[in-house]
């Protein structure tokens, strides 16, 4: 199976569909997790490659953007989930496909909790107390004296 076909089948899970400026499909999910979607893909033998996991701080919600590629036919698709701004929680897909480190980065930079992912620190020191630096509301003065 290929990603395009699978998305046809899973149409009911999609809230809206856009296009990035670079031409890829941007699929926003109704759910707060893309785990079920990816599980289904892998179960149906999609040769899936995960390029990256991008956290984005929109003012009203925290968005997590998974960027997938199908190695078979070279189609790319971006899957986005919108999470609660105050307490963003979603499921990890680290055990399905190698996303643990990307998710860990999103955790430390945006405070997104990936349930089931053990990695919470990738770049920042273990005793970091500076909050979530890539959030738009983050100010240096709130955490550091200088």
């Amino acid at each position: 199976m290929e990603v395009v076909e699978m998305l046809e089948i899973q149409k009911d899970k999609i809230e809206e569909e856009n296009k990035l400026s670079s031409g890829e499909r941007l699929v926003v999910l109704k759910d707060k997790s893309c785990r079920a979607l990816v599980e289904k893909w892998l179960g149906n033998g999609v040769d899936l490659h995960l390029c990256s996991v991008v956290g984005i701080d929109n003012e009203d919600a925290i968005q997590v953007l998974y960027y997938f590629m199908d190695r078979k036919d070279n189609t790319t698709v971006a899957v986005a989930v919108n999470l609660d701004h105050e307490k963003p929680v979603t499921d990890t897909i680290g055990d399905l496909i190698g996303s643990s480190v990307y998710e860990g980065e999103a955790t430390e930079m945006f405070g997104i909790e990936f349930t089931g992912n053990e990695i919470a620190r990738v770049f920042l020191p273990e005793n970091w107390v500076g909050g979530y630096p890539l959030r738009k509301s983050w100010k240096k003065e709130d955490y550091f004296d200088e």
Partner: protein
Amino acid sequence: MSKRDYTEFNLGPQHPALKEPETFRVVVEGERIVKAEAILGHTHRGIEKVAEQRDYNKALYLAERICGICSFAHNANFARAVEFVADVEVPERAQYLRVLVAELERLHSHMLWLGVLAHEIGFDTFYFLVWNDRELVMDALETLTGNRVNYGMNDIGGVRADLTPDIKGLLMRKLDELGPRLEKIKEIALKNKTVISRTKGVGVISNELARKTCVTGPTARSSGINWDLRRDQPYFAYGDLDFDVKVSTDGDVYSKITLRIEELFESMRIIQQVLEHLPEGRIKTDVRGKLDGSAVSRIEAPRGENFHYVDFRNSKEPYRMKVRAPTYANVVSSVEVLVGHYISDIPVIVAANDPCFSCTDRTLVIDRDTERYQILTAKELRKLSIETTKEEIM
């Protein structure tokens, strides 16, 4: 099973084998690695945050400074992403020139990698021979772009410097000189008995592991994933050029050496084609004003797939810029591969996957008696270590 035979020590953050500060926490039994863990972030500079305060023309030079070796890959990739958002057509000549610099960069990056690998296995002579030949490429890049690293070649919408006939002649000469030298390098690297004994069968990344951990670039191709963005999703002018994508199925360090040397020759071919078929025309389209929209750009950097995401919200400054450097994708596989090898293999495996690692708390533990692999989570490891400590005290 006595736990007393285990020794735990840190490789890094300062260690002669690591050219960048990273930490490897390894537990060994004798010389055999029982547990390995990598700790990253010693060089985190917050470039993504800084980029949010600069307009795209300035962020371009920031992107260039993400990496010293593949600076052009980041720079061109960022430019390409912004061009998607701005919806501009990049002149064909600029596309070809970008290919030219990208391939020269691939040449120098692969040769650098080869030299570093030779140094890690204690073969300093080869290291110096390769780096000596690499100077030819560096000189070519310096003449063409104006710098050895951080070329400053790209601008949003095109390139900044044109290829004059003088420089073209010089590049031709350098390439002619480089060809035979690469043949020599190939013969030495692939036939030296000690090199073979140190790299063959070492650090095997299986196809399954490679697929699951989403490795990219030469690491993926050496594990049997036939996939190269230059061919499969052509960008710049790669669609018009003729080249082969080499694939190996062994997955060990030796196959990576073979693969990268083959890629050197392919790069030479591409450069020759570019120099011959360079179209005439402008080299730049101007991009001005505020932008709106988000875009992803992926190009095949020397070390693998380079991923840039930019998001503009009616502004000149990116609302969000996300960079995933190619080696970051290869992190998980390389640490998992370390277990079961010997201390002497650590630098080799690390260098083969390019030294850029992340702390992954999921580590493998090899059971001493049965050699059974099992994955332990951080909590279990912690419990285990507390138990062992208790045992030792009592």
